[in-house]
């Protein structure tokens, strides 16, 4: 397929619902991912990420709503969908007692890669994964980061146009993780659409677009930078002061402070109005015999945004109801 023939939207989900008995695992989610985009599903365990991804892969039928992947409807054309997607999970399903090249050959057979091109594809996968010279190593003896790149090579042997990654770098050391994400960005640049599910906030930073998922719903959708630009309730302040305990107790009673929490050797405050709080808090602390050392507004992390959205009542969704 050439670039001209490939539709710009490679995954389109409209009002997707999945119920298991009385339990709604996925609750009316809608989004679309363009060709070459890296889209992240960020949410806690049990939020509905895996269920949504299994539906997108054509492994589970939706209760209602429409899902088109690579131009095919997953409800009616699940087989066609599966030919166009690759899948790699956190528990890379590699055979530890096979050699690197043998694992690739095995997955090539599984994905029905034609025999006349399999050697070429295996060679390409080894080059991409940086495993040249290790073709005959036992897979079980590879370090975590190497195994992960081999698993990626296996998932790409049939040249899928959409790649699903399920917590691909949990527990992997930061250097291997950066190498892995460089590969993913290369793939995206070559036109592969990547859908990642993760509960690691720092893995989410590598995505172009993020859907924060909680209790089966998308509670926010945007680029990491867009999501971090504002907390719905106000601003985040960092306060370095001594002693911390009395400062926390006092600030919890301050009407300008919506939330106060210890964070390492400092406090994080959520306030309605940053300027007003920055002007008034030093005197407030002095009145409570606390010496303030530093007070400044800091950008919220993805975790701050997530915690705020997940702990607040689902107002946005409720408000839509008639």
């Amino acid at each position, binding site marked *: 397929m050439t670039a001209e023939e490939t539709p710009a939207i490679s995954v389109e989900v409209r009002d997707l619902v999945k119920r298991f008995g009385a339990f709604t695992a996925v609750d009316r989610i809608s989004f679309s991912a363009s060709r070459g985009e*890296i889209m*992240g599903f960020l*949410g*806690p*365990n*049990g*939020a509905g990420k895996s269920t949504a991804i299994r539906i997108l892969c054509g492994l589970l039928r939706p209760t209602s709503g429409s899902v088109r992947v690579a131009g095919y409807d997953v409800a009616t054309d699940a087989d066609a969908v599966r030919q166009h997607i690759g899948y790699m999970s956190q528990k890379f399903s590699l055979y530890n007692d096979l050699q690197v090249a043998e694992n690739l050959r095995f997955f090539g057979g599984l994905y029905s890669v034609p025999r006349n091109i399999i050697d070429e594809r295996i060679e390409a996968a080894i080059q991409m994964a940086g495993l040249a010279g290790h073709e005959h190593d036992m897979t079980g003896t590879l*370090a*975590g980061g190497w195994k992960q790149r081999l698993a990626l090579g296996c998932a790409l042997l049939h040249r899928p146009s959409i790649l699903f990654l399920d917590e691909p770098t*949990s*527990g*992997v*050391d*930061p*250097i291997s993780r*950066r190498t892995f*994400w*460089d590969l993913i*960005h290369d793939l995206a*640049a070559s036109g592969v659409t990547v859908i990642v599910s993760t*509960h*690691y*906030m*720092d893995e*989410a*930073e*590598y*995505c*172009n*677009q*993020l859907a924060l998922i909680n209790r089966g719903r998308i509670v926010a959708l945007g*680029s*990491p*930078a867009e999501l971090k630009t504002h907390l719905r309730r106000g601003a985040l302040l960092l306060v370095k002061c001594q002693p911390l*305990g009395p400062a926390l107790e006092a600030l919890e009673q301050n009407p300008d402070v919506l939330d106060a*929490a*210890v*964070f*390492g*050797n400092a406090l994080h405050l959520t306030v309605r109005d940053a300027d007003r709080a920055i002007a008034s808090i030093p005197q407030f602390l002095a009145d409570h015999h606390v010496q303030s050392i530093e007070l400044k507004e800091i950008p919220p*992390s993805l*975790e701050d945004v*997530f*915690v705020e959205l*997940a*702990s607040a009542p689902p107002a946005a969704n409720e408000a839509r109801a008639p």
Partner: protein
Amino acid sequence: MGIAEASAPAVRAEGLLKRFPGVTAVDHLNLEVHPGEIFGLVGPDGAGKTTTMRMLAGVLSPDEGSATVAGFDVVRDPEGVKNHISYMSQRFGLYEDLTVDENIRFYADLFGLGRREREEHAARLLKAAGMAEFRDRIAGKLSGGMKQKLGLTCALIHHPRVLLLDEPTTGVDPVSRRDFWQILYSLLRENVTILISTAYLDEAERCSRLALLFKGRVMLCDSPDELKRRMRGTVLIVPSTRAREVHEVLANAEGVSSSVLVGDGVHLVVDDAPRRIAQFRKQLEAASIPFDSIGASEPSIEDLFVAYVQAQH
């Protein structure tokens, strides 16, 4: 404990070494944790965190070196250690078919606590954990985050002086993770010393001090602020819709020691921020690549980790 011992380190390890067939899991590790600290053992899988924890808890003997925890020698007096500390492993032994209350009672009995002391302490701990209304729930029916909090409650029931927590927040949702840390901070007021291990580098920021572990060794050990101060260079963030091209142009530019492509831009570690910002602007404009305003940011613990490992190779 004598008065002389009161200011002694809560945890001290000297030259701890543990080999398993084919691998040195912990390699001459030195640590000193002061009373009332939250000290983090931070590193990726396989760095030696769990092996270190198990040796400090007195459940695994070191091949070399020595350690004391709460004043007790882990090799000569592992029972003394076990009575004065609490060790919560990744697979903490909760009884899934018992209720929350029954689990707590089980651990209280194990440490010989009286009924009244148990009741008072359990009520306080459960309230702090936000679990007071779940006392009759079967442990197996709790969410992952709630199970962790119940594990912590059980681990604290006998008033340990030192708490060893091995990756308690792995796989826990962000809201429960935050609650869990607030409980840990509240324990500091009772002068409990906490040694916690984690593979989440962002969690390192929450510790009073931390040791960055890699391949069984302590790479760096200090407070998060101090570690960042020691890192040479500044992190610049260049937001761009064409991040990939930015990365290609700037990765090998003068003064850049690392360049990472993220979802909506590029993170670069540079030697001299004002100078490089001006230089990057020129380079990107010359290449006609659009970009938003370039900003400086504090390095993260991950930036530090990567810079340190790369400097060694």
